[in-house]
């Protein structure tokens, strides 16, 4: 018994689950990881990783504006993300190269705006850390008042995915077939980007704008390497995301002792765990490909890659 408690106290620093900032981080971080994992699977399947990353970066302008106006940061991230999603979809074209270009242009404009707002933050309110907070997140400095709004945002994103599951999946896998079946592909695409904006706003508040891509793409890409079905991949992505987030929070909290009161940033720990999970997920998948390639299937494989 004592050995167990010793182990636990070595693993979890004392104060780990009684400190309020940590609890808030655990709740919001976990929620963000679940939503990002589920939404991320669809994003990766649709080949819209760049759009997912761009939405996160652009929503940082909203975060900076919220800083300036003294609003709830999540609200700022959310509003700007929704505006950017609508902008991207209205610019969007059919060809992938053109779509990426339009995404990039919206991203550039949004980052420019973010530069201006952060500059105004620094000069007008003398909050020198605003750039760091908005770009790299402030997991342990979140007010508990964010929790209800965060849960509402995450819940509505998951609800939207559940309601639109079949048309979303069909239009992601085969847009032509979906159009024949009478699915409004453009509208579904817009809905998907809006849901991504929700998910990304949530994770931008926790791990920061430029690292929220890690929660959106990493677990989903790892899960899609293992799971065969989209539903299973979503579940797995959510699990990987939550494990990485909580593990990251734990390591970051503990690392204050290992490195002499200096601590590693939470986002670094989370990203490292996610990347390791992606690499680990590749090992069995690569074995499978090799096994499949052995009995003279080189032609099929080449066609699949082309």
């Amino acid at each position: 018994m004592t050995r167990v408690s010793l182990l636990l106290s070595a693993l979890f620093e004392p104060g780990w689950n009684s400190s309020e900032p940590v609890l808030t981080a655990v709740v919001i971080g976990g929620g963000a990881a679940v939503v990002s994992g589920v939404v991320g699977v669809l994003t990766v399947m649709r080949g819209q990783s760049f759009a997912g990353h761009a939405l996160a970066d652009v929503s940082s302008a909203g975060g900076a504006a919220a800083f300036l106006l003294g609003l709830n940061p999540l609200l700022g991230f959310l509003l700007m993300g929704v505006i950017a999603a609508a902008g991207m979809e209205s610019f969007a074209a059919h060809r992938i190269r053109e779509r990426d270009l339009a995404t990039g242009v919206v991203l550039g404009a949004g980052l420019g705006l973010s530069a201006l707002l952060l500059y105004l933050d620094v000069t007008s309110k003398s909050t020198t850390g605003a750039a760091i907070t908005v770009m790299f997140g402030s997991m342990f400095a979140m007010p508990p008042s964010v929790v209800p709004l965060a849960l509402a945002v995450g819940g509505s994103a998951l609800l939207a995915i559940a309601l639109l599951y079949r048309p979303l999946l069909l239009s992601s896998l085969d847009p032509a077939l979906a159009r024949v079946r009478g699915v409004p592909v453009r509208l579904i695409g817009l809905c998907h980007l809006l849901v991504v904006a929700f998910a990304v706003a949530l994770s931008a508040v926790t791990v920061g704008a430029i690292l929220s891509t890690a929660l959106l793409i990493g677990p989903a890409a790892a899960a899609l390497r293992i799971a065969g079905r989209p539903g299973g991949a979503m579940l797995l992505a959510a699990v990987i995301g939550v494990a990485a987030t909580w593990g990251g929070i734990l390591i970051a909290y503990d690392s204050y002792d290992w490195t002499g009161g200096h601590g590693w940033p939470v986002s670094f720990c989370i990203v490292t765990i996610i990347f390791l999970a992606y690499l680990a997920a590749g090992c069995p998948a690569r074995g499978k490909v090799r096994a499949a390639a052995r009995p003279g299937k080189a032609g099929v494989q080449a066609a699949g890659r082309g």
Partner: protein
Amino acid sequence: MFASFLVNTWIVATIVAAAAGVVGFFVVLRGNSFAAHALPLGTFPGAAAASLLGINPLFGLLTFSGLGVIGISQLGKAGRPEIATALSLVVLLGLGALFLSMSNEYSQATYALLFGEVLGVSSLEIVPVAVVSAVSLALTALLFRPLLLNAVSPELAEARSVPAGRTDILFLGILALTTSAAVPVVGVLLVFSLTIGPPSAARALTNRPVRAMLLSACLSLLTVWASIALALRLGWPVGFFVGGLGALAYGLGRIRMECVRSRRCRARSG
């Protein structure tokens, strides 16, 4: 605006903009926007590490953009390129967060690194920036035909013995060189605006590759000069103007393309 302490800024900005415009032509043609965004942003930890170690930031930037190229091309072997790009980017940024937490003088320097800084260019920094930009321009000129062929028709390029994989990596290398030279002036977040905004406008104005490339370099110069002038005038960050003018250039180009297309349709039906 043309005070002596700003001469260096104008020189560096001119070099950087010309190179970004030329290389940007291929970014737009090949649809490499995500890589053009991820490579410079991924150099962020390089600058942070250089300031930790007290060496010239350009070396840190070049090292980490090299790591970015390796990451994108190695991870891209197993999965789709955009996933490889996204993952390499987040790993590098995670390292950036780590280095940032180790250094103490972070806030203002970080902001300058992310969004650009007009005033901080010393004359010692000009030479490396000029050398790096010249190398990337020379490589682009040398590889002009294979790059163009590979972008327009990868199959035809393979048939003419231009290997697609090696061309991709070479181009990523050129892109990395160009953008990391531009980072100190425009900032890691907005360099890519310079490599996609002006070229996408240029492509709408002409159909010929060489002319489009030169036009793109000119538009990029105009964008950077206007941005710096406005930034000095109003005291706002350069990045804001680079991003805004880049989007404006793209928008105007898109409108012109639509006009040309509809005129062509009308001529055909009439």
